[in-house]
Each structure stands twice: as C-alpha cells, then as structure tokens.
C-alpha cells in the first residue's frame, strides 16, 4: 500500500445482512483493529462519503435505498460489498425476497467474501478500495481537464 492521498470517509449500509458482517464492520473501528489509523472515518452522511460499504444481499425494500444512497454520494466513489451475501446472495440466494448480490443493483468495485467477513479481510478490502478511489479521481481529473482549457 502506498501513500493515501486523502482521508476517506466511509458510509455503511445494511442491505439485508444478518448483523454478523455489520458488527464486524463496527469491530474495525474498535481498539483491536482501529481502522481510523488509516484516516478512515465512519460517517452517516452519504453526501460526504467516499466509500460505500454494503453488507447483505439486496431485497425489494432496500433496493431503492441502496440506489438512493449511491446516487447521493459525490464522484469519485467506490463500493465495497462485505460478506458473501453482498457478493452473491450467499445462503439466502434462494429466498423469495432476495434479488442477489449488491452488483445486481449498483456497480461494485471490491468484493470481500466470508461469512461473516473477518475484520482483517474487511480492512484489506477497504485499503484496496482506496487504490481504486485514487485511480477514479485521476480519471475524473483527465476528463475535466480539456473542458477547463
């Protein structure tokens, strides 16, 4: 991992998770794992977030909420799907109310598997997301540059 150009803010949303991954995401903030040492803060406000962390598969109720949250986040943004349910639907894939993984609704950049995903792998996923965030920012700058000149 190289230098991080920005302290990214993280938005966590529980799409239809069993709580297991959610408490592991919260666990990342606590003394043992302490994600804040990377400058990452868990925020509740989508307008200020850079990384959207989603746990659980998407169901018919949360679909609109996930779309809305994603839409409210400013560019550049990355989406991390935490846990096997967010990646593919997991054990709940056959449930009548589950549409499948998060990628059926919004584009996902990083997949973190596991049931429940361990804090180490969540942190690894977020760090990978940071690299993608930097890439996206560069692309955004290139896109904007001709317009400005």
């Amino acid at each position, binding site marked *: 991992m190289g230098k991080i150009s920005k302290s990214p803010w993280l938005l*966590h*949303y*529980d799409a*239809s*998770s*069993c*709580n*297991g*991954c*959610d*408490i*592991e995401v*919260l*666990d990342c903030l*606590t*003394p*043992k794992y302490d994600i804040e040492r990377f400058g990452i803060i868990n*925020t*509740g*406000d*989508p307008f200020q977030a850079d990384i959207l962390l989603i746990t*659980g*598969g998407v*169901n018919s*109720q*949360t679909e609109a*909420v996930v779309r809305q*949250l994603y839409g409210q986040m400013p560019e550049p943004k990355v989406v991390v799907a935490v846990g096997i349910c967010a990646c593919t639907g997991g*054990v*709940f894939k*056959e*449930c*009548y*109310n*589950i549409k499948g993984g998060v990628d059926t609704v919004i584009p996902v950049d990083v997949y973190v598997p596991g*049931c*429940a995903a*361990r804090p180490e792998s969540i942190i690894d996923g977020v760090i990978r997301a940071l690299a993608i965030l930097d890439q996206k920012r560069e692309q955004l700058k290139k896109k904007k540059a001709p317009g400005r000149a």
Partner: protein
Amino acid sequence: MAKRSIVPFGPQHPVLPEPVHLDLVLEDETVVGAIPSIGFIHRGLEKLVEKKDFKQYVYIAERVCGICSCGHGMGYCESVERVMGIEIPRRAEYLRTIWVEMSRVHSHLLWLGLLADAMGFESLFMECWRLREKILDMFDRTTGGRIIFSVNCVGGVLKDMDGAMLRAIRETVDQMEQELEPIMTTFIKDYSVQLRLRGLGILSREQAILQGAVGPMLRGSGVEYDTRMLGYAAYGDLDMEPIVGTDGDAYARCEVRAREIVQSFNLIREAIDKIPQGPISVPVKGNPQGEYFMRIEQPRGEAIYYTKGNGTKFLDRFRLRTPTTSNIPPMVEMLKGCQLGDVPLLILTIDPCISCTER
C-alpha cells in the same frame, strides 16, 4: 396546543447499524406517537424450510441473526430434537450452554458499548468492545469462527472442547471479570451516566406485562421472569436466579444487562466444573413428524421456535418469534412523552435486533 409535525427516522441513520424506520409524531420537541415500519431486512428465511432439509436448515437458522447466532441454532436444533424424540448426550447440552452463555456475554458487552456510544461516552464504548474481543478470540479458538460458528447440529454439537480449551475459557472468564469491574462501576455508579439514564423511558411493571415485553426489558421493569429457569439444555443443573431491576427506566435496563454479564460468567464457570465426559452427538435416523414449541432465553429475551414436521425431510413449517418483535410495542409505548433527542438512546435500550425481527 402546539402544532403537530412528523419526523421520519431511518432507515439509514447514523446511530443505527441496522435499518429500521419510525415516523415520529412530535408536538414541539416532545414525541406523542411513533409508528414503526419494518421489513428492510426481510429475506423470507422461514419459507426456506421448503428448500433445505431439516439438517441443512441449522445453518440458515444460525444466520437469522449474527449476534445471537449460536442461540438460534440451538433453539432450532432443540425443537427438532423434541419433535423427533432424540435425547442428546449431556456433554453436548453443557457445551451448547457454554457457547450460548459466551454469546450472551458478547452480546451484552456489544450493547453496553453501543449505549455508551449513544450517550457520547466514546472511551467507554471502546473499552467495552476491547473486552468483547476476548470472547471472540475464545470463539475463534474453540470453533474457528468469530461471529457465526456453526457448532450446533440436530443430535448434538459438531465440535468438542478438550480440557485445555475449557481451562483457557475459565482463565479468560476470570480475567474478563476483573477487567469488567471498572466498566461496571462506570455504568452503575457514574454520576453523568446516571444523569443521562435515570428516569428516561419509564415502562411500568403493568405496562411491561400488558405490552408483552421480554428479556432484560421485562426484568428491568421488576418482573422476575427468565426462560432459562425452565431448565432446558444444562440450565436445570446450574444455579441461577433472574436478575431484576426496579425502576423500569433506561438505567434499570442497563443495570440488568451489566449484571447479567457477571451471571453468565458464573454460569460458564459452573458448567465447566460440572461438564460430564462422554459423546457429543447421537446419530439421527428418520424424519421429524409432529410439532413442538421451544422457548429459549436469548440475550435479548425469550425466543419461540415452532417446528412442524410431516414425516419427510423437509419441514412443513418453521416459525420463529424473536425477542425484538415482542419488544417493539413496549418501545412505542415508552417513546410517548420523551424528547426527540432521547429517541435514539431509547430505541437502543430495547437492544433492537432488526435482522431477527424481520428474518
């Protein structure tokens, strides 16, 4: 009369890790009514019994909720075992009890941490969660999983604990009890914590019974009722009394949960002392036929597992009534008359587990 207004609360909200939506009816700053709407995490798990057979379904039951996962697995297994008339080995029942009590410690510490966070007491939140890691490490060591560890199966448990592991659990529990002491003192005796919690969200004994509160919520209102007294699993052999609060306010619920952690420590120690030798599971033959209502005490209160078998390997019906479901009506009652700023804290005092509620 002040003008009434409605403030939507949730589903994505900074203080709630899980989505729940409330429409709060306000008169100025005072809440006069709350209309909960749930269904954001509904997956339809009960229907899945038609697709997974009764032995596979244990893994689904454990994923009803990540916090009380072991308890749900145990509740489901016990109900199926009673339908089929299986007598599981005593050692398996003791092992289940130890894991479930450890889950209770982890769940209550998690809740105490969230409560401290809701009060704005950040360092206390960190302390609680730091202590909780010790239990998770023990889960990791005994089962290989931190949060969801599938150890229950129909007919017993899948993993055994040897003497060294049991000693390690005992040592961890002893050490944790010492470290819990200052945290307990802060929650129970600290001036500012008392100022924040005392007299907040009072639920009288009568209302608690009328509205059907369960678990620490019910005990906080002074009702001496704990489903563990029924003596399922190994609880019949263990010495325990329900922990009861008096005032029925947020402080009483906090105190009940804090003291229940120590009670769980004692139960774990007693179970380790009394655990018999022997096999950990029995072979299961045939399919369930008949029905059974199983009641167990989850960290959040009484949960009911209804199982109906039809003689095939797929169950006819599995029904689960979780503690948070029964705690929502008392919560709505309790919210009436409080200030808008207290709403997040009061919702937290029922220890909501939305994932359980909606399944």
